[in-house]
Structure formats: C-alpha cells, structure tokens
C-alpha cells in the first residue's frame, strides 16, 4: 500500500481519537453563511466545524437543510447564483476566498476529495473506469502512463474491489452502484487527499453495500489518517462513522457536539425527533432488548 502510506502514523492511533490534539485543521469552517444572490435570501445561517487529520465530522439533515450547500461551499463549487455571504472556509490554513482558479484546481484532489450520491454521473460512460482513475493520477502526480496504471490498480485493490484488473477494463454500465461508488472513492483518494467529503455517498445503495462503503471509509481513515466529512439524511449512518455530529434544519445548525453525547443526551427537539423515528421505525426497537445486557 505504498500510495496510501503517507499518514500511516495516524493510522496506528485508536479509532476515535484524533491523531494529535495540536494538529492544525485540514478544513476549518467558520460560521459560513450562504445566500441566493437572485432572491437575496440567506439559505445557510452559519455553520462551523474543524476537521483535524484523522477526524470524522458528520452533517445530518433533511433535503433542503443546507448540508449539501455547505459541502459545496467548502469545495468551492456552489451552484450558480449562490455565494458565501459570511464567515470563512480555510483549507490547510488558507482562506478559500483568496484562491485563484488555478490554486483551486491544485487543491482539489490533493488536499480535499469528494464523492457524491450518484456515482454514475461523475464518470464518463464511454471510457474504461480504470483509465479515468489513471488519468487523474497522471495529471495530478505527473507520473508516466504505466506507473499511473499500476497505482490505479492498487487503488482499486485498496477500495476492496474483488478483481481490480477486471474492473480496470470495465465501463460504468458494467458495474453495480456499490462498485461504482468504490471506483469514485478510489478516484477521490487517488492523489492522497487529506480530507474526503462524502455527500450522501451511500444513500442510493443497498443496506449491505452501504455498510461495505462505510466500513471502507472507516478503514481508510484508520489506515491513512484520512479526515472525513460525512453528509447524510440518516443519523445512524453518521453516528456509525463520526466523532462529531452537526444536525441541520432549514439552514441552521440546531445541534452540534461529540457523537456520543448527542446520541445519549440530545438537546434539540429536532434531534430527538430524528432519533425517535429511528427508534420507532428502525431496527433499534427490536434489537435493544437483546443488546441491553
């Protein structure tokens, strides 16, 4: 695992403890506000969190709660006529508002990577998926074709695809949703970013496949110290993976804190509602008696 070994030191740390408390954050979001320029309405009313290496932050909320906009603001890819109207986002200590497009391009992929809900639409259907990953490596790392191919294969192995050689030569339509999401994760971590943003990355997948992807993210985080921002409408998904949770509703962070304390002592009514839905309509209700001991 040469390509992924840069941060192995962090990987040896226990899962729920960040690598070092003093480590500077990879991503620092400070009271970010996002407005629609056309209607002049504020959509996101102040979101803030710090993502240190090896840490995982989760954002939970319904569609329209502003969680995706927040992610997009961090990545500098807000949809047209949306803008960051307050606060700041720092990536590796640099305020992104000061970045030129060229600097942005350099930053994306190398420092921050991202995966989204619909993996098929982020890959070119007429190019073999392996070649697309190799392309990313070639451009970003400036290595030769053969080396890029070798590294791409290694990445496909790293995301636990069963037959990397076979998958390398396949097209998107030949792969299932779960496999495509793995390919995208492989592409996202190709240049060893220090943080990965997963926006509803497992929503469209079957439950068992979702668990596989979440396990993969957890493993990558342990092994390479990858910092994660996990966005989901499902509190349980976020709870499974993250140290810190932000609960968003209608553009507002209604609750924020360490996962453990949010789950055991939710302060806001909306968080309690989310949990009640899970407890009433999820598996928890059935499993609790057995696990209570």
């Amino acid at each position, binding site marked *: 695992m040469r390509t992924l070994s840069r941060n192995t030191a962090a990987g040896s740390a226990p899962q729920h403890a960040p690598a070092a408390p003093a480590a500077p954050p990879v991503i620092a979001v400070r009271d970010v506000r996002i407005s629609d320029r056309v209607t002049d309405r504020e959509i996101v009313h102040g979101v803030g969190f710090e993502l240190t290496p090896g840490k995982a932050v989760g954002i939970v909320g319904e569609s329209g709660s502003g969680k995706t906009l927040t992610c997009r603001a961090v990545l500098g890819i807000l949809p047209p006529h949306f803008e960051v109207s307050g606060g700041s986002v720092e990536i590796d200590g640099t305020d992104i508002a000061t970045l030129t497009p060229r600097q942005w391009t350099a930053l994306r992929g190398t420092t921050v990577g991202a995966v989204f809900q619909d993996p098929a639409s982020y890959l070119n259907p007429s190019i073999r998926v392996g070649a697309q990953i190799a392309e990313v490596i070639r451009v970003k790392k400036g290595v030769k074709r053969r080396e890029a191919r070798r590294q791409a294969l290694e990445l496909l192995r790293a995301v636990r695809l069963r037959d990397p050689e076979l998958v390398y030569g396949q097209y998107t339509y030949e792969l299932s949703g779960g496999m495509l999401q793995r390919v995208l994760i492989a592409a996202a971590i190709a240049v060893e970013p220090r943080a990965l943003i997963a926006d509803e990355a497992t929503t469209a997948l*079957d439950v068992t496949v979702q668990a596989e992807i979440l396990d993969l993210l957890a493993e990558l985080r342990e092994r390479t110290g990858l910092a994660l921002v996990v966005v989901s409408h499902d509190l349980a998904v976020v709870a499974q993976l993250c140290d810190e949770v932000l609960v968003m509703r209608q553009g507002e962070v209604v609750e924020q804190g360490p996962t453990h304390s949010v789950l055991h002592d939710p302060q806001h009514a909306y968080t309690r509602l989310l949990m009640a839905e899970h407890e009433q309509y999820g598996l928890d209700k059935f499993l609790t008696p057995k696990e209570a001991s």
Partner: protein
Amino acid sequence: MTTASPEARPAGKEAGAPAPVLAVEGLEVRYGRGRRGRSALRDVSLSVAPGETVGVIGETGSGKSTLARAVLGLVRASAGSIRVGGEEVTGYGNRRWRALRRRGIVQYVFQDPLRSLDPDLTIEDSLIEPLLIQGVERTEAVDRARAFLDRVHLSAELLGRLPGELSGGQRQRVAVARALVTEPALVILDEPVSALDSANRVQVLEILKELRAAGTSLVFISHDLGSIAGTADRIAVLYRGELVEVGAARDVINHPRHVYTRLLVGSAPTLHARTADRSEREALRARLAG
C-alpha cells in the same frame, strides 16, 4: 395503533388457519429463453394469511420486484403455482387475468411516486380509475374514493389537483388510496417508502400500520430492513432469486440464521444497538462470497 406489537396479532398460519390470500408454491421465473436465459426467481414458496403483513426484503436484483410482478400476472411463471384468494392463476391467459383483476382482490403500489400517477389526470380521476374499470358509476365512484382519501390522511381539496402539484409523499399516499378503493384483500407494496424523506416515510408507515389493523393483508417489499421491521408480522429474505429465510419478524431480526440475513441485520445502521462490527461483517461477506 402505535403500541400494538407485531406479535399481538394472530399470525394466522398455524392450526385451523383460514385459506391464505396468497399462496406461492415452488415459483420459478426465467427471463430470456434457452441457455441465455437466467432465472430471476428459483423455487420460491410463500403464503400470506388473511390480515397478515409479510415483509419481503432483498437487495437490488434479488428478484423481489419480479416476485410481485409474477403474483400480479405481469410476468409469467416458468414453474410452480400461484394461488390468489384460493384461485389457481398460474396458467391464466390475458382475459382471465383481466377478469380476476377487475374484481379488485389484489392491488399494487409502485415504488416511484413520481411516475405512479398519470400526470395528465387529476387526483380524482386517478383515484376512481379502478372503480370505473369495474363499471361503477362515476358519481358513486367519487363518493367512495373520498372516503379512502381520508384513510391516507389527505384532504378532499386535492381531488382537483394534478400530480405535479403534489409533494412526493402526498403522491405516494394517493397511490396507496388508489390501491385501496376496490377494498382489496391483499395489497402489494413495492418499495413504498424508499423514495420518501423521513417525515413522509413515517407517515406512510403509519398508514400501513392502520391498514394492517383494519385487516388488510399486505406484502411489503423493501431493501430496508428498518422500515419493514416495525410493520411486518413475518419477514421473508430474498437473496439472488432464492428465499433464504422466512420467519416471525422478531426472530429473523434477533436470530438470523442464514449468512446473508446475518449480514443484512449486521449492516443496518442503528443508533445504539451495535449489531455487528467491521470484522464480523467482513467475515460474513467472505463466507457469502466463498
């Protein structure tokens, strides 16, 4: 209705049970012919007693929608038998299927709330369609349909609207109401809540619970164990076209026997109850693959 647990209801399958609403025996469905064909379902046997709710769980490509479509006569069975309301329907041609369907014993709710209602018909027209097909007078059909709108907690104001003017959750509830207007003995729901956000999901699940309490048999197809768990009396697990496990809901969840079921339960995201850890899941996956 929120307090009734699944066990409180008669399972109905044991001693002196009434004839099942649906009985599927050794069902096989093949797509394509000859050597290039592949079977979507193999040797599936399942029965649904009157008033019972059976959850069918399976992932994409497990054959769960094929099962529903076979029961409704939308795909042909290659082998096995299907009995609907005590009537052997396996060899039925188009005409006899139509006659059977017109009686409205079995209804179907589709997954996609965006496309399950004709965009050019008003809610009223969509709602009364099954009744009109039965030959009911329009005015009477409208009267009867109104009552069912109530059952899914929608106001009669929506009757004049077009589907495009309703939210996804409202549309899905209209689709449920349409399935109910013929007062069917059995409603098959194919992923009824998968496309809905959590508030709407809860609402539809509540409606299903009320239906169950009212004695309608339900077959609830889903990939999400969580939404089935609270609604179904029994759970049937489909994996790659085969029924690998059938049992009382609580048993299947708490004591899954088949490897796939164990992985399924272990993969479900939960808040407090840790169902399985990463290494356990890894081991289960390896066993399933090997």
